[in-house]
């Protein structure tokens, strides 16, 4: 059953520009040229109950704006959305009790008080039964390993610790839908992994529907079996992330290290040389020519180390970004 259904969703913002320098500033005081930016351009998609979907796209693609409309923060310019039968921007308390949103760059915690005070406030706001609250809080603090930090003033927590507290604050009322906007932004590798592992586990255990935006492909790969790539406000891909790299499925990468200096002309005759130093190279070859290329490399060169890889998924994503960018122009 579809939990989220967006149809032809569109959001436009009005803004003005200013010419450089003092003259531009003075001119701007009396006359401003109004422009319109289409942040989300008639996108349609649906998300099933319990699904974890990644929203990918370059900066300014419209991912966060889409999440803001789904959570009722923004009114759309046109189009419709139904989440569990509710229209988000009507901001009905019945709907607000069914979802939570965590924004990596915005905090819902009171910075000068310990996080547990905000948790207690959320207990009252969402009318959580005290016993259930205690059980959920104990479970979440245990899973995220932040028990000893509950009494620490929020502004004294590290970014990773704070993000864990944000997640707890968002999940205390056990929302059916969780919107996550770049939850691992700015975190170190260990903190990223901890958040990622937690979200994957939480989604699998509770069947909470997750809609996640992130610039880290690892986040999406770990948590979301399905991805939607948005660029210039439009959906340019919808499917498993693994399919993204299939656009380059006919190509392979060969990473090579030789005992002697390599001849770039020899390498160029065998495939596309992407990177080259005196004795190392990264080559791109067609999959059907891989076998003969390897035979020639191993036969003609004193190869010390050789590795054959798929084209990285980021390149597939970049391809979609670029292609949709050209189409938009």
């Amino acid at each position, binding site marked *: 059953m579809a939990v989220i259904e967006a149809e032809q969703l569109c959001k436009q913002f009005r803004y003005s520009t200013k010419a450089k320098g003092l003259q531009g500033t003075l001119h701007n005081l009396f006359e401003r040229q109004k422009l319109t930016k289409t942040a989300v351009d008639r996108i349609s998609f649906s998300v099933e109950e319990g699904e974890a979907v990644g929203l990918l796209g370059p900066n300014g693609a419209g991912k966060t704006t889409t999440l803001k409309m789904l959570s009722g923060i923004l009114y759309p310019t046109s189009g419709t959305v139904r989440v569990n039968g509710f229209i988000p921007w009507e901001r009905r308390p019945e709907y607000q*009790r069914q979802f939570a949103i965590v924004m990596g760059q*915005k905090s819902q915690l009171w910075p000068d008080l310990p996080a547990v005070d905000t948790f207690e406030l959320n207990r009252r706001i969402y009318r959580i039964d005290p016993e259930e609250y205690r059980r959920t809080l104990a479970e979440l603090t245990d899973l995220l390993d932040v028990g000893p930090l509950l009494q620490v003033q929020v502004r004294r927590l590290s970014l990773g610790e704070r993000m864990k507290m944000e997640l707890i604050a968002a999940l205390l009322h056990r929302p059916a839908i969780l919107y996550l906007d770049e939850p691992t932004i700015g975190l170190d590798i260990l903190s990223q992994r901890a958040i990622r592992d937690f979200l994957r586990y939480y989604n699998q255990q509770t069947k909470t529907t997750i809609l996640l935006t992130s610039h880290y492909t690892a986040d999406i790969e770990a948590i979301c079996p399905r991805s939607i790539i948005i660029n210039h406000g439009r959906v340019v891909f919808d499917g498993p992330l693994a399919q993204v790299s299939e656009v380059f499925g006919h190509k392979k990468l060969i990473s090579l290290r030789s005992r002697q200096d390599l001849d770039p002309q020899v390498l160029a005759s065998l495939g596309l040389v992407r990177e080259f130093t005196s004795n190392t190279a990264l080559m791109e070859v067609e999959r059907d020519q891989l076998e003969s290329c390897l035979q020639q490399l191993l036969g003609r060169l004193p190869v010390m180390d050789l590795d054959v890889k798929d084209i990285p998924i980021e390149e597939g994503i970049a391809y979609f970004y670029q292609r949709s960018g050209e189409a938009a122009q």
Partner: protein
Amino acid sequence: MKLSGYGCIFGMGLQNSMVYRADFFLSLFSCLFPVIMQVYLWTALYRVGAADTSGYTYEQMILYTLLAGITSRIVSTGFELEVAQDIKEGGLNKYLVKPVNYAGYYFARFLGGKAAPVGFLLAVTAAVLAGASAVLQIRVEPLRWVLYGVSVILALALNFSLFFAIALLGFWLTEIRQLFGTISIVVMVISGGVFPLDIFGPAAAVLSAVLPFGYTTQFCVNIVSGRLGMQEIGTGFLVQLAWIALFTALHTVMWKRGTRRYTAVGG
């Protein structure tokens, strides 16, 4: 959200105001300095006969200054900048997604933040008035203190709804910090927080009776000073309630329209 939720916000506002001890104690003492300065100023003016005060005796003026200084401090706001920043920089997001009334949330937080300083001010008021009544030979009926308390509670609600409506202008004017600075000074004066407005003659007295500002300070003080009869006090309460209803209706409409325009900038 149930009433206990707003009680929790009140408690958090109270805790928040006391986290930084130096700031807390400085904020308590800072409110006394302007009052002390004014007492010296009026004393000097009365001594040389330079004050034309429309019937205020020296004792009444000093009592007014003391009470107006304390009352205006009790009802003062200060949250408007935070609300405007929430609108400008996207901090409003976290309230829009929760089953919570933003105005109610801020009012509970505003009262919580006020509780400790107001408690302190009331203790100071009691001490000052005990001393002043002995020195200035002023006696105030106990009933008038009760009515003063009621008027201050209504003044708090009135000032909140007035400044909340002003803060919501942030939906239409992106940067309004300068406006707040100007408005708070003007309101401080025209509410009678510095001196009684009726010393400027009947026209000023009429204006202060018609406009809402006088009902946040001067009206409350005049209950104690005995310048208002019981009937005028009753009418004053009704006017306070009417202004609260009007500004609450205004900021409710502004909120509905403003959140449609809200752009929620930032990630």
